[in-house]
């Protein structure tokens, strides 16, 4: 089973839920936790352990100057400006390339081939006997987050139980993360901002045809609007985490409430049972 944890809004507690859920599950069975927030992965802060790094590459064009006639087709085709034919040479801007491969197809001379370029890495560790952590890490200044997410997910592929921690937002990286998931846990908070972005995230899950459920985090007890929204969309509220100084203190030092606070391991286990009956 593959469970994605997403939210729309940033800072609602996706990683908190993902880390605690993974910790709790790993007490009794094998689980792989994949950090798909590749622009700022931080699940490793909850689970410090030595990691093995594998580079992630993406294909970018390389020009064979002997075959190139400077016709300019590639530069006119590339909508990302990754190639430009100026005067007597073809310039490439690899960091602008989205690796679509179109330039190799439009070149009438067959003068373009694709070569790998490193844009990030995947770090694998085993912080607990039954927990494997796979973190996708996009290099600074790079644009191809989905490629790193795809690579990170590939490392977990084939495992019976996988958790994907998504990035905030609802754009390409989140869609890449959700793709192939069996269930989507949407973490929200009791604010108008949390509800607004939850609405967007629900639309994404619905569009992708992924069943979803809601976790309300930092609840001040006034969740009527969120509850009404959930009922309207037929979404179960699977867990409510209160706004509490005690929880914040554990969280702020990189601790796990499922491990450090009594009663929370059971609650996260109930959450898992709610998702995977």
């Amino acid at each position: 089973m593959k469970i994605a944890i997403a939210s729309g809004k940033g800072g609602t507690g996706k990683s908190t839920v993902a880390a605690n859920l993974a910790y709790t599950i790993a007490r009794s069975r094998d689980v792989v936790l994949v950090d798909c927030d590749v622009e700022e992965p931080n699940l490793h802060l909850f689970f410090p352990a030595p990691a093995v790094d594998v580079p992630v590459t993406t294909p970018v064009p390389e020009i064979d100057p002997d075959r190139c006639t400077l016709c300019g087709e590639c530069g006119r085709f590339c909508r990302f400006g990754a190639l430009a034919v100026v005067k007597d040479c073809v310039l490439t801007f690899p960091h602008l390339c989205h690796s679509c491969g179109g330039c190799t197809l439009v070149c009438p001379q067959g003068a373009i081939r694709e070569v790998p370029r490193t844009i990030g890495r995947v770090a694998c560790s085993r912080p607990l006997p039954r927990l494997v952590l796979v973190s996708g890490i996009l290099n600074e200044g790079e644009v191809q987050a989905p490629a790193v997410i795809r690579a990170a997910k590939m490392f977990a592929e084939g495992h019976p139980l996988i958790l994907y921690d998504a990035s905030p937002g609802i754009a390409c990286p989140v869609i890449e993360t959700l793709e192939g998931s069996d269930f989507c846990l949407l973490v929200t908070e009791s604010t108008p901002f949390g509800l607004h972005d939850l609405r967007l995230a629900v639309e994404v899950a619905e569009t992708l045809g992924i069943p979803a459920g809601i976790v309300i985090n930092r609840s001040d007890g006034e969740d009527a609007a969120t509850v009404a929204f959930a009922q309207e969309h037929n979404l179960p509220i699977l867990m409510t985490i209160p706004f509490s100084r005690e929880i914040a203190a554990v969280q702020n030092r990189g601790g796990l409430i499922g491990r450090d606070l009594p009663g929370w391991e059971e609650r996260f286990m109930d959450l898992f049972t709610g998702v995977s009956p």
Partner: protein
Amino acid sequence: MIVCITARAAGTDAPVEQRFGRAPYFVFVDTETGKSESVENPLVDAAGGVGPRAAQVLSEHGATVLITGQVGGNAARALGTGGIKAYAYRGSGSVADALAAYTAGNLQPIPLA
């Protein structure tokens, strides 16, 4: 010599546009004949990477001098490699005014990679 001036509209009376890659028009002026050609820039609303693409448009029109407000890093590299010199026109005048300022030697070159 062909000079390209970035403009907000077609023709040499059009106001100069300060942006390079997203300028609505490129006005190419042949300084020998005085003839001009205005080319609508298809990249105005493009998502990104407009600098190198605009540089290729200039190169294809045979321009060797660009007059604009400023250029970004990618555009600078493409222009520099393409042997196109860039000059900064920061005034609010027309394409013709900018060209006159360039001809009079009053424009500062923009350093390119």
